[in-house]
């Protein structure tokens, strides 16, 4: 069987909330001037972080497909709904309508009046891999560039003891990568990690750190080996 490898990618730009690692503890949710009030009222804190990252002037939206990748989504909202159901036997229709995984991406598309494809993924501790694979697939399919959004919020206190990844319990964040076909980076078979059992997959925040630090050559994307993301070109990260 003759199968072409996954395409290379360039990082065209990125945006994030909070905008720097130093600002990770921010009390107030971000302002969302670009999103109409009737839409933004539906977003919780993670949703607001995501909408903020999606509407930065440094990354203008021009109709790209969006791949939204979140391990748990707005888990605080989901947990609140479960408690409400247990306590009162009914749930808020407004909260329920927002409890699907792609809801926040939907708010963004509605605000932009965009009809571009929106894909929502929840891929456990291999979210970075799943997001890059979906992005690669869309680039092969002819997309000029793809917006890859990662967003997460802390687990509710009751769930904390069951956190499976160290970043699950920290704080909410969102960042967007604009990726286009190119030769800066490449999904590749991870021959360096032949051991099928050991290791930890790169988290979305690991991926961001890798993209922005030219010193590293590759990061491991899958828990049991198999996939890595490699730096294959010399160009710096993003404009």
């Amino acid at each position: 069987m003759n199968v072409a490898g996954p395409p290379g990618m360039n990082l065209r730009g990125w945006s994030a909330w909070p905008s720097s690692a130093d600002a990770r503890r921010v009390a107030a949710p971000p302002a969302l001037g670009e999103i109409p009030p009737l839409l933004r009222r539906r977003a919780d804190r993670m949703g607001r972080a995501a909408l903020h990252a999606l509407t930065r002037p440094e990354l203008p939206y021009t109709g790209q497909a969006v791949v939204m990748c979140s391990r748990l989504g707005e888990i605080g909202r989901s947990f609140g709904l479960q408690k409400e159901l247990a306590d009162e036997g009914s749930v808020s229709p407004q909260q329920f309508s927002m409890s699907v995984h792609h809801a926040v991406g939907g708010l963004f598309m509605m605000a932009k009046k965009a009809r571009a494809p929106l894909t929502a993924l929840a891929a456990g501790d291999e979210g970075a891999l799943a997001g890059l694979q979906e992005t690669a697939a869309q680039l092969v399919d002819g997309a000029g560039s793809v917006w890859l959004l990662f967003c997460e919020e802390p687990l509710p206190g009751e769930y904390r003891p069951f956190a499976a990844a160290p970043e699950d319990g920290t704080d909410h964040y969102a960042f967007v990568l604009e990726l286009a076909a190119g030769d800066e980076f490449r999904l590749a078979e991870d021959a360096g990690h032949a051991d099928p059992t050991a290791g930890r997959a790169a988290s979305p925040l690991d991926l961001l750190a890798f993209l922005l630090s030219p010193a590293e050559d590759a990061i491991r994307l899958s828990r049991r080996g198999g996939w890595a993301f490699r730096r294959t070109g010399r160009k710096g990260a993003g404009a």
Partner: protein
Amino acid sequence: MQEDLRHEIKVFIIEALNMEDVTPEDIGDDEPLFGEGLGLDSIDSLELGVGLQKRYGLRISAENEETRRIFASVRALADYVTANRTR
């Protein structure tokens, strides 16, 4: 007294629907709540229905022909609450 109730209902709508940036004074007594006017949508009508049931003991059926009239404006809603409330 109806005026007090209308104000109460405006506050209730703002809180139930997370209408940040909107104050009770921004909502006219006769302003349409849905579509033009305040701009609420069908999910909001469900949310208000559940909230009105909890707060005033009203049962408003989604199938009811009257529903459109009840939700037409704050004034119409206040009149309906006055006539039908059980708490």
